[in-house]
Every structure is written in C-alpha cells, then in structure tokens.
C-alpha cells in the first residue's frame, strides 16, 4: 500500500544544499518510528491505526510487503508516531504483552526502527564517495579469499532458507492444532446452545426434579 505521508522516494536526487536537512529529517523520523513484524497479510492501515492509537498519535503507517510473496507472507508495518517517547512506549508494551492485530492469535513483534528498514530512504549525504562494486576474476590476487567468503555466504543462505522452512512448518503445525481445538470448542458450545434452544435442558431438569435457571 502506498505510504500515507512518507517523504519523497529516493528517485529524486536532493540538491546538495538541502541534502543534509533531508537526511536529518529522515533520521529524526526514524527515531519516532517503530516496526511491527509478523503482521497478518490481511491487516489494513485503519486496523493498524486503531490498534496503535492506544499508544499515542499515529502519524503515518506504511505496510511493506515481502516482494517475493506479497499475498501470503507476513507483512511488516512501519508506524510513525508523534514523539519518540510514544514509539518506545509502544514497543515496550507490545514486547511485554502479546499484541494481536485483527484478532489473529499470532502476536506481532515490535522493534525500534532503524534506517536500514526503510527501503526508499534518501542517501546519506556524508558519504561523498560513490559506492561501487567490482568483479574479481579467478586470476586476480585476492580471488581465493573472496571465493571462500562466497562459498561461506552461499552456505549461510542455504541454511537460512532451510531454517525458515522449518519455522514455517512449525507455525503451520501449531496453527492447525489451535484450529482443531477451536473447532472442538465451538462444536461443544454449539451443542449446548442447541440443547437450550430445543428445550432439552428444561425437560431434563423436570425429569430430574431440578430447577433450571438460565438465560
């Protein structure tokens, strides 16, 4: 979803004169923001607004999709509060008590925002040198070192994906169990309700010579 009141995207290159101020503004904004993780993909901005409204004034909300799986993966939400104090208060509360949005029995996690969380942030003006990347070919002097790093990074990435998969499976299992339980409970309660509705309980009470007081 588009941001409600985000600063300009990084497409525009700020002119050198107001570049520091833009970045400063950004940094100041970051202090007031918090990031919610593990938010259900069905959450909408008004929902989040009401949910976090209890901690203070919400200035803007930005829901970030996981680009690789925008519909089903958990979303992150960056919430900008009015003061840094409200933001830290919100984070603290959410950490201490399970906080649910949209009634999903899966609590969200809250973190203080960091600059790297904003994918469209303005560039830091102080770094005058342009970032470059270079190719290191097999014949070059440092090839061995980089190659080792690369292999290690690959290994890490694989491990990471494997772990994420395991976590996901556990989550699904837990969700299934909970759903089973809920179903059973609802069934039970439904039956009770039916009993009352069909006046079964009344008949039973008369049969047993007991009083039935209900409703």
């Amino acid at each position, binding site marked *: 979803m*588009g941001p409600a009141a985000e600063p300009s995207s*990084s*497409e525009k290159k700020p002119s050198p004169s107001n570049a520091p101020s833009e970045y400063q503004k950004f940094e100041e904004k970051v202090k007031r923001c918090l*990031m919610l*993780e593990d938010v*259900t*993909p*069905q959450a909408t901005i008004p929902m989040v607004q009401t949910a976090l409204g209890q901690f203070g004034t919400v200035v803007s909300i930005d829901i*970030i*999709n*996981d*680009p*690789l799986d*925008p*519909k*089903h*993966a958990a979303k*992150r939400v960056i919430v900008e509060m009015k003061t840094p104090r409200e933001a830290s208060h919100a984070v603290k509360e959410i950490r201490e008590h399970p906080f649910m949005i949209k009634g*999903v*029995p899966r609590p969200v*996690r809250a973190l203080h925002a960091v600059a*790297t969380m904003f*994918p*469209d942030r*303005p560039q830091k003006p102080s770094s005058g040198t*342009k*970032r*470059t*990347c*270079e*190719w*290191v*070919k*097999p014949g070059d002097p440092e090839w061995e070192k*980089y190659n080792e790093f*690369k292999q290690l*990074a690959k290994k*890490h*990435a694989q491990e*990471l994906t494997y772990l994420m998969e395991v976590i996901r499976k556990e989550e*699904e299992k837990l*969700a299934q169990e909970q*759903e089973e339980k*809920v179903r059973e*409970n*609802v*069934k039970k*309660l*439904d039956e009770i*309700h039916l009993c*009352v509705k069909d006046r079964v*309980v009344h008949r039973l*009470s008369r049969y047993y*010579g*007991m*009083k*039935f*007081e*209900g*409703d």
Partner: protein
Amino acid sequence: MANEEEDRAYMSSCSNEGVEYRLYDIVKIFDKEFAVPHIGKILKMWEERSSGTRKALVCWFLWHKEVKPHDADNPKELFLAFGEGKGVTNELKMDSIVGKCKVVCISSDPRNKEPSVSDVENADFVYSHAYDVDLKHTFPVKVVADKLGPDAIFNTEEWLLAVTKIEGKTNEFKSKKSIKSSLLESKKRPRDAEVASKLQKKKIDKQDELTTQKKKVKVSDGKAPIAKENAREGSVSKQEEMVQSKRQLLKSEELSRLRKAQIADVKVPALTDGAVLDKASSPRELAPDMHDIMEQTDSLINDIVRQVNDETVLGEKSKGEDSKELESRAGNVSKVERTPEEGREAADHEGDIADGDKVESKKALAESDFSWQEDLNKGSMFKLLKKTKSSLTMEPEKRTASAVEPLKQFEKRKIFRELPWEESLQRGIPQGRVLHLHNIDPLVTSADMREMLKSAFQGLSDARILPQEASCPSGQAIAIFESRLLAESALEAIEKNCLVMADKKWPVIASRVKESLNQARFPGHLALEKLKLGRNLTSDEFVSFFYLEGFDRIWIMF
C-alpha cells in the same frame, strides 16, 4: 510418424486471410504472450487432410538483443536460428501468421539478390547471419543456404517486390480481433470518396497554416496539388516517397493538429483507391493510427489477462500502470470497437483521456524502444505515429526527452493498487528474469544498488533492496532483468567470478527466484467463519458453561 506424413498435403503457396504466402516468406507470428510479434521464415506449408487445418513449419529469427546483448552495431539485424536445439523451428497453424514482414537479406553472397539502399532502409529488419543455438555463435547465413538451398535463405526477385508491397508496420498486430476493424473498413467504404475529399480539404487548410513546409506538403489551394502529388506517385517509387514524407511530417507540427481535427472522420481505409489516396498525408496515417489504438488495446487486453513479456527498458514501470489504466478503460474501448460509429467515439475517448494517450504512447514507445534503437529517420509509419502520439508538443525531439515526461507523470500518479515495480516483479518471476541477491551490505540503498548493478550487469531493468530481516546481518536484494537470457548470464557471471561490493568487501551471491507454488495462507488465522455460518450465536457470546454434578441447579451463562 508415417501416418502424419501421409496425412499432409504439402503446398508451395497458401493464402490466409487474403494474403498469399509462399515458401520461404518471412512472416510475423502472433503470440498472445508477447506484445511484439515474432518473426519467422516459412520453410514448409501443408494441409492436414484429416482435419483440414493448415500448418506451416517456421524457422525463427532471433532479435539482435537476444543474440548480441552487448553490441550496439545494428539493431535492425536479426539472426536466423539454426541447429538441433529446441525452438529453432516450430510447427504452427497458419492462423497464427498475421502477415508478411519487411525483412531482407543483406548477405554479400553472389547468390543473394542484393537489395537496393532504399529497400534496406525501408525494411524493418535485415539479416545476414544465422545463430547456432547449440554452439551459441553467429555465422554467415550462406552456410545455411548451402544446406537448405539458396532460395530458402537469400532474397529472390519476388520477395523483394513483395516486401515493397507490404503495407503496414511490423509492430502492427493484425490479431483476430482486428478483423473487426476490417469489417469496419468495409462499412466505411461507400463513404470513402466523400470522406477522403473532406479530409483533403481539411488537410489543405491545415497545411496552409504551416510554416515549415517540405516538398509534398506544400499545398496552397484546392485539390490541384493533391492531384499533382498523385500524379507524382506513379513516377517516384512508393517506398521512397513514404520514407521522405514520414521525415517531413515528423518535423512538422501539422500532424498532431490534423490528427485531432480529423480523427472524427478517420477510418478512411481508402488504401485501395489509388486516385483518392494522398499518400503522404494523414488519411493513411490516421487510419492506421486508429488501427494502432485498437490493436494496441486489443493486445493490451490480452496482456492484462495473461502475463506480458515486457522486454523494454522503460516499459517496466509504465507497463504495470498501463495495464491497470487500460483495464478500466478497456471496457470503454472495446465497446467502442463494436459500433459502426466507432471512429468518432474513439476520438472522443481519445480527446477526453489525454493521459491515456500518454499511457498508450508510453507503452508504444517502450515497444518501439525495444525494436529499434533511436533512429528517427528510419523505420515505419507506426513508429512515427508513436512518436507523434508520445510528444504532445511535437518537436522533433529525442526520444528520451519525450519518454522522461510521461514517466514523471506516472510517478506522480498513485492510483494503482500495487507499486509498479512489484507488479513487474510478479510478471518477471515466472519468466525467469528475476534474481535474488544475498550477502548485500545492508547500508546500501535501493538507488545505490541500482546504479551499481547497472554498471556490473547488462540489461538490468530494476533492482531493489528487500526489507531486512531483523536478525540477519547481511541484506538481500532483487534484480530484475530484461530477459531470461540476460538473467541467466548474470547468474553465470556471479558464479564464475566474484562480484564484490565496495566498502565492506562482501561477495554477492545470487539465486534464481522461482515461482512460489505453495499458496499456503498465513498460519494463525483461525477459520471460524466457516463454522459460524448458519448459527445465531458466535463463540464470543459463550463465556462458560457450568454443569455441576449433584447440584440442583443448572446454570448456563451467556
């Protein structure tokens, strides 16, 4: 299969939708997943006796960009596919052939009939080399000629003649739906004479206003000059005139005004009526203009339904927006198509939705970007029209300038559901154009990333940093390429060598992004909705139920 062979009745020429195709003709083939038609050479044609369907064996031409992505020598050059690999030739139904294509062979072999300079200029594409898909290199096409016969590969007299006669633009999509426009044409035919004369009159008026006049466009009064022009037609070769007139008109401002003024009267397909035809001027262009719009929207409608292989540099962003825009307007335009008064209505739509012009023109522009390099003087009428459409001020601008304008407009618009780049991502993933990069320095911004990767890889169309996992010390990014080939070659390069980010000196690793098959829902939602149906109470209302054995009361609390 012996049966298959017996079933076939081979032909050396076949006519389809009014056009006669001969063996070894070069044709355009419509593929619903691609906005630009493929180009292929007919090697065989036959009719299956049992079913009556007509099929052709077509050998494909590869685009310059696919074969030589790094060179920028001749973007009009195509390469004939060759080899044992898959996809060199295909058997197709004749229905998918939408027309002949203006392609000539410029090989210097003595067996090849050299096309004239004007022929080469007029042609949309040229070829002189073939590409071996197994060995992955190009070689002169005469080798193939030795195999298949010189007639199969080189120009013949008839083919060169046929090329000059091919009307229309390479990119024009005469898809099935355009049959409607031809129906329209037939309806309009009785009005041809009067409409054409009206047009010419108007045209003359407009031309009077012009300051920049070039030879054919200089008209001062009445129909006499037109007649003169018509007379001149016969003398000068048709194609040359067309080219030059295109050049002139490109430089004149008249076109946009004319177009807008006359669009109501357009639908003059008086192309067959030579006497009335004022070739250099608007009718021809305007009619195809409308055709373009129709066909573009048709093709766009198809695109919306399926995924479009967008292989343009500019198109990525705008395409997402285009399809969304046009989705809403498609209803309008397709309705318009079906009325006999469509010319006028479409004009109204066009006039009203000025932005839509830009949208379409953007797409058209993007398409033309893909097909040709920046070369205003060459190319077909279609490209000319696209440019005129794209620039409302109608300067003989560079294409980049005009492209930037609409791009900015799109960025300002935020009426779309998804971010354009996300949509392009969704389109790119099933086509294998997207790479997932790991081990990126998390302090790098998306813009930095894009610049860096653009310098490192060829054909990168977009790059984004993915939101960082809280616990992960290194970042991830996504890179979208223009085509699958380019993505694969980038992947290979990363595997073979080390791409190291400056500053932190981390080597980047890449992996393909596969389409996520498991559409599992977010775990945690408890599907109570299903259970609630048909019941009066929800589980919220139940608090507890006590049944205490032995007691004489039963309490039920709600």
